[in-house]
């Protein structure tokens, strides 16, 4: 019988499929916005149509400057996704390398890596990101770097743990005796066997990165007006929501859908990558 791939297991997970669809929708929206395909220009002001409720022309209504909220939500989602993807990519790359190398070599290097991740862990995430964005600046790349620093230790831990047990296994000893170079042992033989928890962590971290990014822009760091960002839109809606609910509801909904989607994808991956949890 043909061996089932993880993907066929993934498709059996209801949460994985729903999450996958939600994430795909948000990605598509981001790409459309990047290509400039939005119903209106997210930046163009139209004072005559300020604070209009949802209508056929403005599906999500307009804000205090008469800008189309749907277009701004799309643009904001693009920024959140961009920051989330870049930040988590950096965190994964750096964290996994440090974790694997530290776990494999042990001793002083490992002690340093573990201590470093403890230091960052004991720091409240949002405060750390806040201080770093404050020192770097407000472009999306600065926000990404700040979030990457915050999430690197998680990947160090996730990668290091399994390496500690895998490196003692016979097959690793065998490839070492066969004379494979250390990088080859690390990345061709050990990495694939510690990959599943890392992949799951990527999905979850992306959802937290979106929350952190919107939190920072809510506090006025990161994306600056007039550019659109979901956190900034919620922040501006604080004084408007009482009489214009749509200014608060739609950006909040966008953040929530993206975070729910990524979390469900994480659940789906967990169910399909962990042999013990594969049902039937």
């Amino acid at each position, binding site marked *: 019988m043909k061996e089932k791939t993880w993907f066929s297991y993934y498709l059996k997970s209801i949460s994985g499929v729903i999450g996958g669809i939600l994430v795909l929708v948000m990605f598509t929206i981001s790409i459309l916005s990047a290509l400039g395909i939005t119903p209106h220009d997210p930046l163009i002001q139209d004072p005559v149509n300020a604070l209009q409720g949802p209508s056929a022309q403005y599906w999500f209504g307009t804000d205090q400057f008469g800008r189309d909220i749907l277009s701004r939500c799309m643009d904001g989602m693009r920024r959140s996704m961009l920051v989330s993807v870049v930040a988590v990519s950096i965190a994964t790359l750096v964290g996994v390398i440090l974790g694997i190398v530290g776990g494999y070599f042990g001793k002083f290097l490992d002690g340093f890596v573990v201590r470093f991740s403890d230091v960052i862990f004991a*720091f*409240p995430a949002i*405060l750390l990101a806040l*201080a770093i964005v*404050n*020192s770097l600046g407000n472009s999306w790349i600065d926000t990404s770097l700040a979030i990457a620093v915050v999430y690197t230790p998680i990947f160090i831990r996730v990668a290091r743990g399994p390496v500690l047990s895998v490196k003692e296994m016979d097959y690793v000893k065998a490839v070492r005796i066969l004379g494979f170079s250390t990088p080859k042992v690390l990345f061709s033989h050990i990495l694939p066997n510690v990959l599943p928890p890392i992949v799951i962590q990527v999905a979850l971290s992306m959802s937290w990165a979106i929350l952190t990014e919107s939190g920072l822009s809510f506090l006025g760091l990161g994306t600056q007006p007039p550019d659109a960002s979901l956190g900034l839109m919620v922040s501006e809606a604080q004084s408007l*929501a009482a009489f214009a609910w749509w200014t608060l509801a739609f950006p*909040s909904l966008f953040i929530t859908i993206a975070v729910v989607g990524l979390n469900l994808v994480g659940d789906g991956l967990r169910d399909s990558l962990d042999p013990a949890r594969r049902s039937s």
Partner: protein
Amino acid sequence: MNKRLPSTVFFTRLASVITTLFGISIFVFIVLRVIPGDSITGSLGIETGALTPEQIESLRAYYGIDKSLFGQYFSWMGSFLTGDFGFAYSNGVSVLELTKSALPVTIQLALFGTIFGVILGISVGMFSASKPGSVRDFAGQFFGLLALAVPGFVLATTLVTVMANVFGYFPNGFEYMSPWEDPWMNFQQMMFPSLVLGIAVAAPVMRTTRSALLETVDKDFIRTAHGKGVKHRVVQFKHVLRNSLIPIVTMTGIQFGYLLGGAVITEKIFAMPGMGRQILDAINKREYATVQSSVMIFAIMFVLINLITDIIYRRIDPRIK
């Protein structure tokens, strides 16, 4: 400390805690020096450009930033260890004085939030796990997912809008009252921010509770308990919940630690004069001593909470050595 903990283990842990705290102190110190601007531009803004070199020199001496980085680090460390935590120039008092009023607010908020979150999380978790795969399980999990995904600031903004505009009730609009001045007002002001924080805590607690319960229910001793005729409710609480507590306590400890530091946004929205706001203000004003000392206080509390969770483990499960 616990007698069952061998002294070598205790000392290794103590040593690692101290090196971690030392690392944090250096890390904050460096991050702050990298931020453009200093205490002078932080307090005077663009007027700094109008200062003569002599004035700048004397201001640098006043703020203590004329010393070398080593000098600055050690003079701060000195004042941190001797207990006044350094001087907050823009407030004109020591950081200790600031912290004395701000820390209780944050601790009260985090405690209320955690208690609410744990009660909510465990209840929904038990509700969900009582019938896996059923509609109620689905509803519970859906709640957990939403609580995880709706950002605190969205929830807070919505609460403020609805409460203030629909019900005309908004206790946080008044000046903050400590529980000693006006307990009833204090409670009303704590209510909404704790609710927001509590929901954030409830999500992971609910998920942990559910999976821990489902794991325990399958164990032999539960079947035995049912078999010898123990009432269902008693089995649920005394056998199943008790034996699932360890992961729940771990998760609660982690969440409490996060709340202490992560309440920045909530404190800001609800105008609570806690540690989060203190740090936020201090970062903007480049009050080095305030930021450094506040972060150290957070870090020490974080480490202490880890230690306390460890001790609670031993209470719950005597098998842990």
